[in-house]
């Protein structure tokens, strides 16, 4: 591990040098590729250091991104980190594609109903707790103070739907990292994926109600078509991608990792242009392949493991670099209260409602549900864009929560998998 620490230290020193030269050089160019190279290298070695300390590699990726990013040491310019949005979309699609290949019909038949029931319970309890807390904070939160009671209720509901969301990205990445396999892992993965589907629907409804409370009218038809398009359109486009992938694998069958990267890139970029969920597009593509052609789904799994290391390291390091530490100071107390309440709500609802036949679910499942990342970021940004009056302040609050969850969540998820006895260690260097 000392070797990895020295290498990471040298890397940071070189970045400091480049940053110093940039101050001397007035005429600077594009910083996107610098950000990509620096975050990739720092992420790879920080992952090794984190592993040495018994932490998930992912925590190392995120932490190093925070440290060298524009909001801490500032060695990587903010424009460079912003320019990596495409990589973020690509990573989410790759992760979702792998997750989809785990969703075979047998699994859905086995645990589908139980997962759905528990998901309703966990999301419901967490929503109610967070909703009550946000509304109770009305006199304290600056964006709620000037609102009428109905408006404050609607906005509290909107914020709470986002606060409930989980992170399939982090969960799947940790599952890959620990090579975890078994019924507990399957249950956890299914829960975070289905949970996010619930959140997407609930968010669309809450956004519609909020718009109506501010005098925008309640357009039921527009609401239903929007949600329907996002859900069913995503599944449809995912099915199309699955067919393209299967045809490619059967007819061309060369350079699969490269082709997968290209396809996920198209899913991410095209999905967001078409107002679809890139996560759901790739997830349904993976699930369809897993159920149509098991052998090829295994090949996809293997190919993504080969192409995944640089993409995951870069994605999570860039996510860390984008975290605004200053937000923790401004809305810190309120965010921290919500973080604690959310964790308690998830913990208690898992204890009470998780299936009794597996005691591990009651004890450890809650730890795997704490993480928040990409989906939550996306929804927070959407609030900011849709409601320009108060949205940016809501975004700050949620980003402060995500910052805490990104740092704590991966550690807890890994601990949950280890304690369940399904983690198989982290020996392979190509894991995330």
């Amino acid at each position, binding site marked *: 591990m000392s070797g990895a620490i020295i290498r990471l230290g040298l890397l940071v020193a070189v970045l400091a040098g480049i940053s110093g030269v940039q101050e001397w050089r007035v005429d600077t*160019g594009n910083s996107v590729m610098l950000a990509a190279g620096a975050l*990739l290298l720092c992420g790879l070695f920080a992952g090794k250091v984190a592993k040495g300390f018994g932490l998930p590699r992912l925590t190392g990726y995120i932490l190093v991104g925070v440290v060298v990013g524009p909001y801490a040491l500032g060695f990587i310019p903010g424009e460079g980190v912003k320019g990596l949005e495409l990589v973020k979309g690509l990573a989410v699609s790759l992760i979702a594609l792998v997750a989809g290949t785990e969703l075979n019909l047998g699994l859905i038949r086995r645990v589908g109903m139980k997962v759905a029931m528990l998901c309703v319970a966990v999301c419901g309890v967490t929503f109610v707790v967070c909703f009550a807390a946000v509304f109770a904070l009305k006199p304290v939160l600056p964006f709620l103070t000037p609102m009428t009671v109905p408006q404050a209720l609607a906005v509290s509901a909107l914020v709470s739907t986002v606060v409930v969301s989980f992170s399939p990205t982090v969960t799947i990445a940790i599952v890959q990292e620990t090579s975890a396999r078994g019924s507990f892992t399957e249950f956890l993965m299914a829960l975070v994926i289905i949970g996010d589907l619930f959140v997407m629907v609930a968010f669309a409804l809450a956004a519609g109600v909020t718009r109506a409370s501010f005098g925008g009218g309640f357009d039921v038809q527009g609401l239903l078509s929007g949600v329907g398009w996002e859900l069913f359109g995503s599944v449809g486009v995912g099915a199309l991608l699955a067919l393209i992938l299967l045809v490619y694998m059967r007819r061309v069958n060369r350079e699969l990792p490269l082709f997968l990267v290209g396809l996920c890139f198209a899913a991410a970029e095209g999905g967001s242009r078409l107002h679809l969920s890139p996560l759901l597009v790739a997830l349904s593509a993976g699930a369809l392949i897993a159920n149509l052609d098991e052998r090829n789904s295994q090949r996809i799994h293997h190919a993504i493991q080969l192409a995944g290391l640089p993409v995951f390291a870069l994605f999570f390091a860039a996510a860390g670099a984008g975290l605004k530490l200053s937000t923790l100071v401004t809305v810190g107390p309120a965010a921290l209260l919500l973080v604690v309440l959310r964790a308690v709500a998830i913990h208690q609802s898992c204890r009470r409602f998780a299936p009794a036949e597996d005691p591990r679910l009651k004890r450890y499942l809650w730890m795997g549900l704490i993480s928040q990342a990409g989906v939550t970021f996306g929804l927070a940004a959407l609030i900011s864009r849709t409601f320009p009056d108060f949205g940016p302040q809501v975004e700050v609050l949620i980003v402060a929560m995500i910052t805490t969850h990104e740092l704590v969540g991966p550690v807890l998820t890994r601990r949950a998998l280890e304690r369940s006895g399904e983690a198989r260690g982290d020996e392979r260097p190509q894991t995330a």
Partner: protein
Amino acid sequence: MQALLVFLAIAALSLLASSRTLLDPSRFPGVAQLAASGLIFLIFGALLGPGLIGVLSAEDLQGLRPVVSLGLGTAGVILGLNLEPRVLRLLPRPVFSAALAHAGVAFLFVAVPMAGALLLTTRLPLGVVVGGAALLGAAASLSSGHFAVLGYRSGRMERARGLAVALLTMLDDWVGLLVLALALVLGSAASVADGGGLVALALLLGMLCGALIAFLTYALKDLSELTAVMLGGVALVGGAASYLRVSALLAGVACGATLALVGGRAVEQVARALGRFERPTYLMLVFLAGCYVQARDVDAWVLLPGYVALRFLGKVWGGSLARRFAATALELPPRLGYALIAQGGLAVCLVVQYLMLVPGPLSQHVFDVVALGAVVNEVLANRAFRHVLEPPPPVVKEGAA
């Protein structure tokens, strides 16, 4: 969206360019040659770029500059890695003389007349014109040895001869890089001292990154992990150069050379890891370079025939001179000059780097001439190389029966 467009275009072109039908030399010899060398991507880039159809706008190209710097950085690192000091020390002096002869003659054949032509057509100051003409000469001096390598691999050429040609073409790269460095010293900043400082900064940055990558890759065994580190390293050197607005190509060369010097046994593995993403990065670079071509640049079209013809003559004459110099050291084919017509991608790298750092009408002319010339030379080379393989006609002595 533009990044997606470029990616999809390149993915489609990659599939097209790896098509067996297209690569069959018996069906479409010229196209097959251009596809194999990757220069077909330059043509597609020129077609889709703002100069012709305009699928990609000038703003799109501005946004895609990081990809160009990644490509230039990768090309530079590969060139630098080929600089093996132990091998170079073993080479006899006539080999260097021969390389200098064929590169130098082509340089002079192109640079001197082109300086006159540019002076007449552009009416720019003499110093600027000399710089542009020197860069044209530098690009002309470069040759690619891929025909010779393919020739001996397919058994159509003796192995020793094929390797000797490849060696000469590898050494001429340094002439081109040296002239690029000089051109950047003269043109990339307000004063020569500042220009020199920027070139020195690029080299220093490259050396630092090379040493860092050597240290990072030391004791890494897993190829996928090594590939990820190399990808990050190349992105770091190219990205840092682009951020500081210095030459990514020269920084890459310095990085690769340092890596070759201090990397020890790991160099071979590093080169293998680099090879995993070399081709896609190169194709992306050539495609984007093609997008910079201004197909409506009339001056470039006027200069192009002269540039190609003068380079051809320079290579043929320089080749015979090189053969004479290296007669005792290398086994070279009789019509060496014909084996040196292919220009390869480095010429395009040189001029695209110059265009990025010293933008202006002259560098655009130079870029257009060299980029279009690289395509024409590739097609010409296919025919010219046949003369290398055919035995020379017997010399009929007077009085012989």
